[in-house]
């Protein structure tokens, strides 16, 4: 009886593990030659467009993945701890406000990697498995 019960529990546990959605690991990337001392807080503030000023006084050039994709929503939910609707409505507030402008959005991982490779203060995020080329991972989530 006890064995049967254990089997049921094990079965339920396995079902739970496989039924949960599988999320991709996300890597935040910069150019290999970047010397900016990024930390979690700076990355968060840059992607919320609360500041674009880097510690050395130069300007960060962040880029988002296209809203609607799984990488974008996972990044927004897990790193920024925001609902996607907040980012969307917040973007439109920035667009029509006389201050900092909303960030560029690129179509996919390859486009983000290419942009970061070619932009001195570029910073973006991609599926961790897709990292390649002249970029360095500064944070993984």
């Amino acid at each position: 009886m006890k064995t049967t019960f254990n089997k049921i529990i094990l079965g339920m546990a396995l079902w739970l593990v496989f039924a949960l959605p599988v999320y991709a690991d996300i890597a935040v990337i910069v150019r290999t030659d970047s010397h900016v001392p990024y930390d979690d807080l700076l990355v968060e503030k840059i992607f919320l467009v609360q500041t674009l000023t880097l510690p050395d006084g130069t300007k960060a050039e962040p880029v988002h993945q296209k809203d609607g994709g799984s990488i974008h929503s996972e990044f927004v939910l897990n790193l920024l701890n925001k609902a996607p609707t907040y980012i969307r409505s917040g973007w439109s507030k920035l667009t029509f406000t006389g201050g900092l402008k909303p960030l560029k959005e690129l179509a996919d991982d390859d486009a983000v990697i290419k942009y970061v490779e070619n932009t001195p203060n570029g910073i973006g995020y991609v599926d961790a498995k897709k990292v390649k080329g002249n970029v360095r991972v500064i944070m993984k989530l």
Partner: protein
Amino acid sequence: MSVSRLIVLRAGIAVVAGLLATPNAHAVDFNFSGFGSIVAGYSSGSCTPDNTMSDKFNASCTRFVADWAHAGVYSDSLDYRQESKLGVQGTLKFSPSISLTSQLVARTADVSQISLEWAYLTFDIDQAWTVQVGRKRLPLFYYSDSQDVGFSYPWLRLPPDVYGWDAVNYNGASATYRKVFGQWSMKVDAFTGSESTKNSPYGKLYYMEPKTIEWNSIVGGDVELNKNWLTLRLTYIHSGYQQIDQATNTKDVWPSGAYSGNQTIYGASLNVDTEHVVVRSEYSVFDRGSFQYTAKAWMMGVGSPLGKWTPMLTASGYRETTRFPDNYVASNWGDLSLSVRYDVTRSSALKFQVDRLHDGPNTFMGDSNMIAVSYDFVF
């Protein structure tokens, strides 16, 4: 429309047309965007024919002032004109640090018209300092800058008890400073200028005769503080204030007996945004007490983003007090609303909102229930 206003509007249209005509110019970077809202609704409830609004609004049994600044007032029949609007904005970047921004908005409330909301030059002096000169939005409240952009907020409309005043823009200059302190980002604005609104739509809510409302010698500042989940905002504005009767070209007399006065406005806002919670709150005081009244307005909304849906429950209130009760009837009302936003696409949202407004004891517009649907979009 006065000649000067016509010239300003034509200049604005010329700027936007000019911006549109040069999208391929290599020397300048051009950016064009727009927004719109289609809103339909009506008010209902027990009949209140006895109100103290302008006679224009007496024909209806119930009424709901949705947009004070543009005289968007719902009656008891279905109406799509009171809050619908379409706006375009062009930004021309002459260099990395100098740009020109212009925004035009077409409305169907009051009299159908296109208005020049913004036309200003931006000088980004460095990463921290920005100076802007021209026609700009008056930063009274948290959502003032994007108040015409329905897509930028969770409700169908900004709570009128707080966002309902007689000036929206000003002509002048502002300086902005940004700084990060540990977890907090700070943005500080200081500004000065003036605003004159001829044929004031706000004035039409109170008078049948056309009025010009003037805010002169505006001086003000605001501070916005942000950390990941929390936004705080404080604002202060001081200005001269007067109202001119256009038919006689004379200043109207205030309850105090004076023909003009000074107003002081201050307010605070606290917002929370997490993955599961959205809180919006605002408190503001319009002190016109030396000549007319002091008005305190507040609002508090709580909601929860659930995927594409954002339901919100919001309470708000408006209360006037006066030192001249023999010459002025103080107003006092409150509103409770339930709203739902549904993000249809990344750039459009459908909204539904019901409001229950209680006005009294001195009736201005009367009690009403308000029901409305909207489609907001940006492009």
